[in-house]
């Protein structure tokens, strides 16, 4: 039973809510994917350091004629709390540098030896650094965690930005609900008067408006979610094919069940909040009018 004429405000509300839910879902997805990628990256580089040994074949003034690389490895193997020591092959080093430097140039450069070590504890780094510097001041340690710090800030900033976007969409959505209720009450002023005279309480009118809003928001949530899913699918394809070639970037594979639940809670929470806001707005506005 459609007591009130709300077609105009429903149309307006429907479009706004669909757009806001779509934007919110995109923001949540980007936030989730970037957080997951960041965590993956961070866990992969945790307690990982690279030691650069320039002129690795240079002989150190010692009895056995060992090279600088041999001496460095000797120190590392004797050092406690080092889980693994891996000397990178020349090919691997070249592959790392290749995108930055042409292959021909690489032939004429004496590349440093790179030793990747995984630590059991990161607090041994100062002692390790001192021991290595005793061997040669040219040898230095790259701590991946430190290198990662500016990126961590960027990710954290991006996450905050996505939160702001979600908050803004929620704000716009709820303001739209209030506006739709306000215009709905104005358009149906006479009907509301009749309904009051018949004996209706404000609660009845609020519930009737809530039912209308629920229908609109239900439809908008479904549309917004469907649009967002379509966009994810397209992005997933684009990331796989167009930008990264053979590198596997799979949005859907990264997202687990819990993330999907959070994702689906977005349209549901928008609809629920919309209903609550609609009901409260009707009650407040009618109380002001009476």
């Amino acid at each position, binding site marked *: *039973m*459609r*007591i009130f004429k709300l077609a105009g405000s429903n149309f307006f509300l429907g479009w706004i809510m669909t757009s806001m839910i779509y934007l919110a879902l995109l923001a949540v997805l980007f936030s989730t994917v970037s957080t997951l990628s960041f965590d993956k990256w961070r866990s992969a580089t945790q307690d990982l350091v690279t030691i650069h040994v320039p002129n690795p074949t240079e002989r150190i003034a010692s009895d056995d004629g060992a090279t600088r690389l041999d001496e460095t490895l000797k120190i590392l193997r004797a050092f406690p709390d080092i889980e693994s020591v891996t000397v990178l092959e020349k090919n691997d080093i070249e592959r790392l540098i290749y995108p930055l430097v042409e292959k021909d140039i690489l032939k004429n450069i004496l590349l440093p030896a790179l030793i990747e070590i995984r630590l059991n504890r990161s607090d041994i780094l100062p002692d390790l650094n001192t021991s290595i510097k005793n061997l040669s001041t040219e040898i230095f340690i790259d701590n991946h965690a430190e290198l990662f710090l500016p990126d961590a800030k960027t990710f954290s900033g991006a996450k905050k930005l996505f939160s702001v976007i979600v908050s803004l969409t929620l704000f716009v959505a709820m303001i739209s609900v209030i506006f739709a209720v306000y215009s709905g009450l104005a358009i149906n002023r006479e*009907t509301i*008067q009749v*309904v*009051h*005279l*018949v*004996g209706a309480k404000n609660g009845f009118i609020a519930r009737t408006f809530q039912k209308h809003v629920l229908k609109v928001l239900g439809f908008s949530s479904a549309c917004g979610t469907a649009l967002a899913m379509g966009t994810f699918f397209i992005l997933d394809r684009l990331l796989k094919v167009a930008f990264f070639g053979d590198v596997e970037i799979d949005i859907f594979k990264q997202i687990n069940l819990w993330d999907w639940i959070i994702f689906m809670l977005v349209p549901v929470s928008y609809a629920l909040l919309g209903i609550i806001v609609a009901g409260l707005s009707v009650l407040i506005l009618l109380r002001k009018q009476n």
Partner: protein
Amino acid sequence: MVRFENVEIRYRGKEAILTDVSFDLGEGNFHFLTGKSGAGKSSLLKAIYMGIFPSEGKINLFGRDISSITKKEIPEIRRRMGIVFQDFRLINNLTVRENVALPLRIFGTKGSIIRRHVPELLEWVGLGDHLDDLPTSLSGGQQQRVAIARAVIARPVLLLADEPTGNVDDTIADRLLYLFKELHRTGTNILIATHNENLIKKFDYPVLRIEDRKLLFSD
């Protein structure tokens, strides 16, 4: 049930429409309220259904002084009344059936009861063939009968009708009056505002007459 004590009714900034009105409608009453056009019949009814509050005097409804009634209590009191408005005030986007069912929906009556009673009553007022029509497609007389059906569907304790026979022919007017009589017989108190003297003469009920802003009683 309805008691007015020295009531004055005036709209904001305007001259009083009714002054020093006092009357007492007890249980089991059927009254006509008459007077010239613009005499204040509709305003008196409006004061009873609390569409306007008196500028002076006391109105007592169902044992409650309305000046002590809170806004939240007003719907509860209105639910005991059925109101037929002079301009019908039907909801144009609801069908005839839905308009009549509205009070029952508001009161939370079961759907099965609504589905049974509404067509019965509409059949009785001669609109059995218009259940699913919109009010705008009906004539003035038919709309008036829908308004009456809506006012009586919930068996009110007090029925207030403002010119309920104003847009219908004599046959329908008589029929509606018999409906009111039947309602009265089953315990509904009725106050009908009308300037149809023929109707007043035909149905021998007490008359409240408004003249020169005062209320006079006559039999």
